[in-house]
């Protein structure tokens, strides 16, 4: 695939700047068409199987997992995440909560449950399948992450501070790329994620299938891969920092109707 990508990288297509507007429209049409023909449902299907499959020392499924709407309630659960969970005394996003359920319900060790959280095109991870399944059950629900509990407020503020915090070998913050309107990286439009009008369509379409590498990707992965490109060390999976950033984005984009899992370039 890398070779094909490299070949595609050198393929230029815009004859002149005057065509930029048409090009944008055509790219939107492309995005619409790939969304219509997306294999995203295959991942939802795979996730349903894993959700119902008895696993771990206790050989139980995740069907009793409480994602915030009560044990076993999946409908609308993703749209209300991240949020504070009293039983864990912590703000959690979907993936953090799934790990929690794997530990408490299935008796699995944290190390085992998180040993391969980011899959590849040949072996998507359990986390990716489950995210697709759970998020799919929020289609049509309004995004309403937890923003009222003191720990939720604290996490939101930490997320904001992280968003603007410059560090790493290249001095980047999230805002270095996502801070100014109307900018692109290569041909890719960059949403200003600190502004609701830009954050809303983004949070309403993650997690997502990426056609460029045929992989289903979660929000934890999205944050991880941004930090990789920012030349930072790696954020630990479902650490407070990643959840805070996730809540900052979800909170900034709240109110949008969830229409994911999305399909991206």
């Amino acid at each position, binding site marked *: 695939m890398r070779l094909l990508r490299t070949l595609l990288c050198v393929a230029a297509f815009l004859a002149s700047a005057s065509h930029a507007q048409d090009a944008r429209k055509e790219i939107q049409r492309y995005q619409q068409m790939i969304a219509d023909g997306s*294999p995203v*449902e295959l991942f939802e299907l795979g996730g349903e199987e894993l959700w119902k499959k008895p696993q771990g020392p206790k050989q139980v499924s995740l069907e009793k997992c409480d994602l915030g709407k009560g044990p076993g309630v999946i409908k609308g659960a993703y749209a209300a995440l991240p949020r504070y969970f009293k039983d864990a005394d912590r703000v959690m996003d979907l993936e953090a909560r799934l790990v929690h359920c794997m530990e408490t319900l299935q008796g699995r060790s944290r190390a085992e449950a998180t040993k391969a959280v980011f899959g590849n095109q040949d072996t998507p991870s359990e986390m990716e399948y489950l995210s697709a399944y759970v998020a799919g059950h929020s289609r049509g629900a309004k995004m309403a992450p937890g923003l009222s509990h003191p720990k939720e407020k604290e996490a939101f503020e930490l997320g904001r501070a992280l968003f603007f915090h410059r560090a790493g070998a290249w001095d980047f913050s999230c805002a270095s790329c996502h801070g100014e309107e109307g900018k692109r990286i290569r041909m890719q439009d960059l949403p200003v994620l600190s502004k609701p009008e830009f954050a809303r369509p983004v949070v309403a379409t993650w997690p997502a299938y990426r056609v460029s590498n045929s992989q289903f990707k979660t929000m934890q992965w999205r944050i991880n891969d941004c930090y990789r490109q920012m030349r930072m060390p790696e954020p630990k999976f479902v650490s407070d920092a990643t959840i805070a950033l996730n809540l900052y984005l979800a909170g900034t984009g709240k109110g949008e109707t969830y229409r994911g899992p999305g399909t991206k370039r």
Partner: protein
Amino acid sequence: MAAGPMKIRTTLAGGFTDVRVLMTHPMTTAQSNQPLHFITNVTVKVNGKPVIDAEISQAISRNPVFSFRLKGGQKGDKVEVSWLDNKGETNRIESAVV
């Protein structure tokens, strides 16, 4: 994920039946440094009778998605889609029109 799950949706539309089918398949090309592995044949049957026979190549995207349209149709019609790949693996899925 070779020969993973398939998904099918068959819905009555104005005067025809819309069939949308998803297949889990790597559809590898040679440059992935993996053996060439792709679906070669796809067949669509309605109530056991073949209506579409397709020969396809590695130029079809990974995890193939196809839409077809069947003439007329009524609720309860059985639509079956099956595939065969170059290694002889196969998979099939059936659905009743809604």
